[in-house]
């Protein structure tokens, strides 16, 4: 497992930070199907977070169908077809947009204005 960064200075809970990074690595194909994840305790030690936090992360990954666990052996990345991954990515995009739209709604921004903002930011990137 590579390139996981945990920050104590941001508001996102640590288990969520780790989940987000591993799930995007699975979706991007950086972690391959049937690749074994480190044990919960080893991951905790290496990321310097508590065992309970990693347990929660692994449970969430399993719940979301991203990994599977073989009793007494360990957890592995689930294999995906391209369609599965596209669907998962779409779900993820929807989730993050939902949060943005909700916060814009609280500023009373209209739907047309929202689309305009998104389009102008997109063009600027």
């Amino acid at each position, binding site marked *: 497992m590579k390139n996981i960064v945990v920050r104590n200075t941001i*508001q996102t*809970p640590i288990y969520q930070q780790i989940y987000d990074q591993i799930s995007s690595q699975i979706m991007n194909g950086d972690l391959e199907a049937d690749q074994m994840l480190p*044990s919960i*305790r080893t991951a905790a*030690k290496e990321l*310097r977070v*508590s*065992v*309970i*936090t990693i347990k929660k992360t692994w449970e969430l990954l399993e719940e979301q169908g991203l990994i599977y666990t073989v009793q007494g052996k360990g957890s592995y990345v689930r294999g995906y077809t391209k369609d599965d991954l596209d669907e998962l990515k779409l779900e993820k995009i929807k989730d993050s947009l939902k949060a943005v739209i909700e916060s814009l709604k609280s500023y009373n921004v209209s739907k047309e204005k929202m689309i305009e903002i998104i389009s102008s930011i997109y063009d600027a990137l």
Partner: protein
Amino acid sequence: MNSIEIKNLTKRYKTFTLDNINLSIPKGYIMGFIGENGAGKTTTIKTMLNITKRDAGQVSIFGQDIDKDEISIKSKIGYVSGNMFYPKKTLKEVTKYYKSFYDEWDEGLYLDYLNKFNLDSSKRIDELSKGMQLKYLITLALSHHAELLILDEPTSGLDPVARDNLLELFQTIIENEETTIFFSTHITSDLEKCADYVTFIKDGRIIESCSKDDLIDKYRLVNGTEKELLEVKERLIAFKTNSFGFNGLIKTIDLKETDSFKVGQPSLDDIMIYNTLHKGGIL
């Protein structure tokens, strides 16, 4: 299984009472024990280990009653207090004395750890740095296959690098799922890095004892304007005011959907500091 289970532990002194302490630690995890100086951390540890006699309550360790199986329990505990015994003796001499108490002593394992920690057994205890002294004490505990390490303020007096090393060592020790670690500290950042469970003691009473993640979820840090303070004052555990407004701590369940002030995740420090103040008090 719980490695430690304490029920209604009470110890009365003339000026201080350890009041009805309940806590338990599941096997294979790290619990940090936090509280101000004088809150009762050392008294709790000494009383639960029968080093000082308790007035009431039950203590069971590894599922055994401490009154019935004290010797068998203690042969599986490594206890590290702040005091170094025999500072003028060499490690070799102290080890010789120490191992005579333990049937389970594993000389091979002991030599492995000495090597791993770069401990020179011909040196005198007082020639070692504080961090190396701790590693030596932990070596002794691990060499008699202690299943429970109890450390009283192990990180105090250590520089940040040595402290970080020690916390990493704790996580390495529990990697095998067999060993449990209970350590007291007043430095909450020690716990942010490695503790699974946190127990917070204040004035001889347990304020919180749960997993660290749950503890942090239970509280929210709030800040807002003076006007907003009036709305929320009664619900705050404590707050401080400044020229911009106020900062305070609230229980997550006491938040209302209509609250307009900013809400954020607290650190363990925030939880300890605000809980130490009286309700509604001002710093």
